């Protein structure tokens, strides 16, 4: 057992760190230090830069544009990325539709869509949830009727993150309403510029616009935008759930958040009971350690080609709970400084002044991607052999 990085890995880490130091732009660093969301232009500029390096589609096979890194290297990259104050990349292209395409897509589909993801040119969004199909995805209703040379799509998606930024959506639609719930679902790629699509913003309680409703009225989608066969949508969706993501636990970003919190406390104007605050931070750091080393085991298992067990649900649950705890600590340790919302100038500490934005937004992290309750149900079935 060797829990330290190897010499090669440390060298890799150094090279990534230097690169980050030189390439993460100041505006991004500033936003990150304050815990702010980036504008579309900032985010896309950053992703294109990574794309140019070949560092965007990290988990992909080399033949499709992946860097050929081990899971450990990907973890190191993510850590250095986060600690350098750079944002996580959007998962919809690189972690979701990409792997679907190279696993289930026809050659033409791969040729057409993968390069745009690898380079950061094409922005994707995920059309899964519907007003009455959130955690219970199998009951989705958005209908894709097969016509001669296209599908005619009608219906509505909701909670569509960054739909307003996106060029493309991958989407679960019902192609056959006559069969059992899961069976009639297909996986469709939709160009967001197609007539009949309306994107309406949903503002979140952090005051920002991340989410959308997307309405489809007689939207014509070419038949060749179907991935796999009709009715395979459920299989593909399940495949994605088990697809490896070294970042599911949010370890790197929690490191970054705890380091922001420490800075804020140490540089606080002084009325804080700092030794008291440090105890609370110590508890968070220790929880992060437990999460981090559990994550390492997943990473190591991936590098050794071992299959992932139920740990990954655990990582998601613990990881999101920790993100919430850290953000709550940031709000509470900020005291009154956290009361501010749109103050034009710093009052004591910028970090604390913005703390509730992230805290508010992160209430969603135990909900989306399958609520933690659903994750526990699934895990319980595995444990109990139900």
């Amino acid at each position: 057992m060797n829990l330290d990085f190897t010499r090669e890995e440390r060298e890799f880490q150094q090279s990534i760190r230097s690169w980050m130091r030189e390439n993460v732009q100041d505006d991004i660093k500033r936003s990150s230090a304050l815990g702010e969301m980036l504008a579309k232009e900032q985010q896309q500029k950053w992703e294109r830069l990574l794309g140019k390096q070949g560092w965007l589609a990290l988990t992909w096979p080399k033949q499709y544009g992946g860097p050929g890194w081990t899971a450990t290297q990907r973890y190191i990259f993510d850590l250095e990325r986060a600690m350098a104050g750079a944002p996580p990349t959007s998962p919809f292209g690189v972690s979701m539709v990409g792997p679907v395409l190279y696993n289930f897509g026809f050659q033409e589909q791969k040729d057409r869509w993968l390069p745009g993801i690898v380079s950061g040119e094409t922005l994707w969004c995920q059309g899964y949830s519907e007003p009455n199909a959130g955690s219970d995805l199998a009951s989705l209703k958005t209908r894709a009727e097969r016509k001669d040379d296209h599908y005619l799509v009608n219906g509505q998606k909701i909670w569509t993150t960054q739909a307003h930024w996106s060029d493309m959506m991958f989407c679960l639609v019902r192609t056959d309403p006559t069969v059992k719930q899961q069976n009639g679902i297909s996986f469709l790629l939709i160009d967001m510029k197609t007539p009949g699509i309306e994107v309406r913003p949903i503002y979140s309680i952090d005051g920002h616009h991340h989410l959308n409703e997307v309405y489809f009225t007689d939207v014509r989608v070419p038949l060749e935008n179907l991935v796999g066969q009709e009715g395979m949508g459920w299989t593909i969706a399940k495949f994605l759930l088990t697809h490896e993501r070294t970042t599911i636990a949010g370890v790197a970003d929690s490191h970054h958040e705890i380091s922001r919190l420490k800075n804020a406390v140490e540089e606080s104007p002084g009325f804080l009971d700092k030794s008291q605050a440090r105890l609370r931070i110590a508890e968070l750091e220790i929880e992060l350690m437990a999460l981090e080393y559990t994550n390492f085991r997943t990473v190591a298992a991936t590098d050794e080609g071992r299959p992932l067990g139920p740990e990954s649900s655990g990582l998601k649950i613990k990881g999101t709970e920790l993100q919430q705890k850290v953000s709550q600590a940031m709000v509470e340790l900020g005291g009154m400084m956290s009361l501010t919302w749109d103050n034009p100038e710093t009052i004591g500490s910028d970090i604390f002044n913005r703390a509730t934005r992230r805290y508010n937004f992160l209430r969603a992290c135990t909900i989306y991607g399958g609520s933690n309750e659903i994750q526990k149900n699934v895990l319980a079935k595995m444990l109990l052999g139900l």
Partner: protein
Amino acid sequence: MEFNLPENTTLIADTASRYLKDNYSFDIYRKQIEQQDPFGASRWSAMQELGWFGLPFAESGGGFGGTLLDVAMVVRELGAALCLDPYVDTVVAPGKLLEYVGSDATLAMLSDVIEGRVKLACALYDFHAGYQVLTPSMKLNGRRLSGQKNFVPDGGFADTLLATALADGELVVLAVPLGICETIRYRALDGGRIANVLFDDVDITDGMILACGEKAEQALSRLLAYLRVLDCARMYGAAGALYRRTLEYAKTRKQFGVAIGSFQIIQHYLVDMFIDLQQLESMLFMAAVKAESEDVSQRERASTAAKAYYADKAVRIAQQAIQIHGGIGVTEELDIGHYFRLITHCSLTHGDRAHHIKSFSRLDEVHQGE
């Protein structure tokens, strides 16, 4: 022992509830948080007509002699309605400070408050001193006032501040016209209006000094106990609203073909919310009755305990309300997330949980019932 709301208090609460139902709504709230101007003249005069301006104050000073419990029930309803009208910050808080100081000058000002002739706000905090209200960082040197006040909840329209400062290490309470200060207004977490005020070597005249030394400290101590309870009252209103909405949602929202309230885990979440809400209500009643006590240790014990408890349990109820609502709970569209912000906000005003636990741990224990 008798635990019922007095008839009169129930009447006040019911009237407040009816008034808010007729005159306030989530739509009005949403417009209000976007506006610089906090609210029209109509709701200001409505408050006065309802008798709220006089409610918190002794009859001898021209008030209606309401108890803290009466005021708390009004504030509870304001919280339940998500209403941002700054009743506490611009009427109750400055008015009680004037009353607690109790000089001829302050009682005269108080009657202006009751008549709605002035718009005051308390400026007790700055980010250096934090919750240590007895040692503000602002300094009064001779007749020159220098420093800043932050987190001043002036509702966006106060014209005079009741501000604290230290003069030779002694606490003073001053009434300073906002016109002579540099003021930056912005929005607070709960959507209300809040200000930073910079005092750049401001000239202070005799009449501006309302109280100093022990008198000022005592008035402030009493005020804070009072305000902590109103924080709790507002949170209770919001937490109750969240519980009712969440219970209703669990009964009607379907997933996997059944109401989500049929899942045992959701049931237990709701039960936990219900039980905590019960205890929050008990704490509110307890604190409202005891925080007006002449006995400082009773006041402190009751109000710090209540606030510490609320900053834990009301916050937890708000978090669970969102979790049970799912995605819809984190949107601006629905009131759930706004109640959530309100509760977070109130958990941080006039002392947060850590502050109150620490204060409480330093009080001497008073054997219950003695």
